[in-house]
């Protein structure tokens, strides 16, 4: 089979979005890419090692608070604060992972959930550091260096994000996978805090974990681009549907049910099946 060079194609397509100009779609693209990074980091764990984390938002949250606090309170530039998100989230993932990866299946999911809820509660209660339920609003405008070029334009910022996404092609191994997944989730969180201009305890709440799981599943688990597809699909869907109805949970739930029964492989899986079928038809024709 001739291999389609998906990776470069995707990169080119991704880079074209801001070039196309619409500020709004650049924002959406940012959103998608950050969530894609987050979902890809989860996929690293679920897709390749079979461990279903139900508390992945914890690392997202750690990353977000790390950059948020470093940039706001310590006035560090992005170039220092951003890697710190990955490092700290990775460190926490290592700490928790040592306990988690010894467990299997449902117990693993439960322990990750427990740790995540723990961190969420810390974020919620430690008001002096985290701002409690109000979170940290006004994460400052992003400067790449002290006094360096500003990343505040969504376009410049976007490139950073897109490049980090492509770099995630890492291999498995459970603890390593856990730590890497945590670190990348942290990076995603760091970016999101800046993009969103605020960090809130909700970032680490279990519903965020389930949201990102849904994205991963929607796109297709275990395929590298699945989560990206899922993030794109879910964010666009959300954006479309919420402008028509407030019953978004209902719609999302129904989609999820249909997906689980109809296309357990997610959109990527469905695409592969359809593609195979189309080829089969072509060949038999």
């Amino acid at each position, binding site marked *: 089979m001739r291999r389609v060079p998906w990776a470069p194609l995707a990169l080119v397509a991704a880079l074209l979005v801001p070039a196309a100009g619409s500020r709004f779609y650049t924002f959406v693209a940012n959103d998608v890419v950050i969530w894609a990074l987050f979902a890809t980091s989860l996929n690293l764990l679920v897709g390749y090692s079979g461990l279903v984390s139900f508390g992945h938002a914890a690392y997202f949250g750690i990353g977000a608070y790390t950059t948020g606090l470093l940039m706001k309170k310590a006035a560090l530039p992005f170039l220092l604060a951003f890697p710190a998100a990955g490092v700290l989230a990775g460190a926490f993932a290592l700490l928790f992972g040592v306990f988690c990866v010894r467990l299997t299946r449902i117990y693993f999911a439960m322990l990750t959930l427990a740790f995540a809820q723990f961190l969420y509660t810390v974020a919620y209660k430690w008001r002096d550091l985290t701002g409690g339920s109000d979170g940290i609003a006004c994460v400052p405008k992003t400067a790449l260096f002290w006094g360096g070029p500003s990343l505040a334009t969504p376009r410049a910022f976007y490139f950073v994000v897109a490049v980090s996404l492509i770099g995630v092609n890492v*291999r498995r*191994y*459970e*603890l*390593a996978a856990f730590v890497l997944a945590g670190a990348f989730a942290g990076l995603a969180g760091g970016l999101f805090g800046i993009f969103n201009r605020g960090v809130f305890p909700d970032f680490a709440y279990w519903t965020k974990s389930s949201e990102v799981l849904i994205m991963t599943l929607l796109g297709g688990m275990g395929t590298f681009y699945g989560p990206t597809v899922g993030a794109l699909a879910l964010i666009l869907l959300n954006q479309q549907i919420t402008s028509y109805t407030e019953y978004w949970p209902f719609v999302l739930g129904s989609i999820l049910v249909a997906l689980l029964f109809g296309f357990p492989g997610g959109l990527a899986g469905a695409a592969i099946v359809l593609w195979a079928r189309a080829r089969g038809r072509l060949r038999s024709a």
Partner: protein
Amino acid sequence: MLEVRDLTKSFDGFVAVSGVTFGVPRGAISAIIGPNGAGKTTLFNLITGHLRPDRGHVTLNGRDVTHVAPHDLCRLGVGRSFQRTNIFPRLTVFENVQAAFICHRGGGWNLLAAGDGVHRDETAALLESVGLAGRAGEVAGFLSHGGQKQLELGLALALEPEILLLDEPTAGMSAAETRESIRLIERIVRERGLTLLFTEHDMEVVFSIAQRLTVLHQGRVIADGAPDEVRRDTEVRRVYLGERH
């Protein structure tokens, strides 16, 4: 090499093993036989640290290992297989054996090393000798019953033990596979100077390879000695062998 002295274990007042004493000389092939529920598996569990004895001692090479945990014993050179198969059902046959090699020889912590290549050749060779070479890529849980027993033997051997305890190794294997397994076991014992202790209800297997027999009945040793002596023992015939063997 292995000595068991006065080993006793009871469950809620039911005495499963009581005052068992015997020894296994280095390089020998010994078998433990006895009726169902005689306490053979329990005895194995006591020796390998899966159960704690109420009384008695286990010595390995002169060292008291009565309360040593199973995985530590494994490192001291004691390998075993289980009566009911104990494999990693979600991994492939190849990965099962490979995992055993990794556990035993190390390399498990080197997480970022490309895991696929570790102990590749040894794994392939071992699968060949237990007759599973053709099924290396299959998921272990989906093997047939006999296939799983073959795999389990492979796992025990991959641990490269000095002394090997096998609990009904050929149960469920067809005659042909049984014969191959026996040949394999004999060869490895010869080549590696392995000491073997096993249980089995298939008397053909027992009498074809065992050099010593210990007979257990209701938790006690009722006979101990060379196969032919034991075979003639009237008590053994009465409670276990019946008239045809």
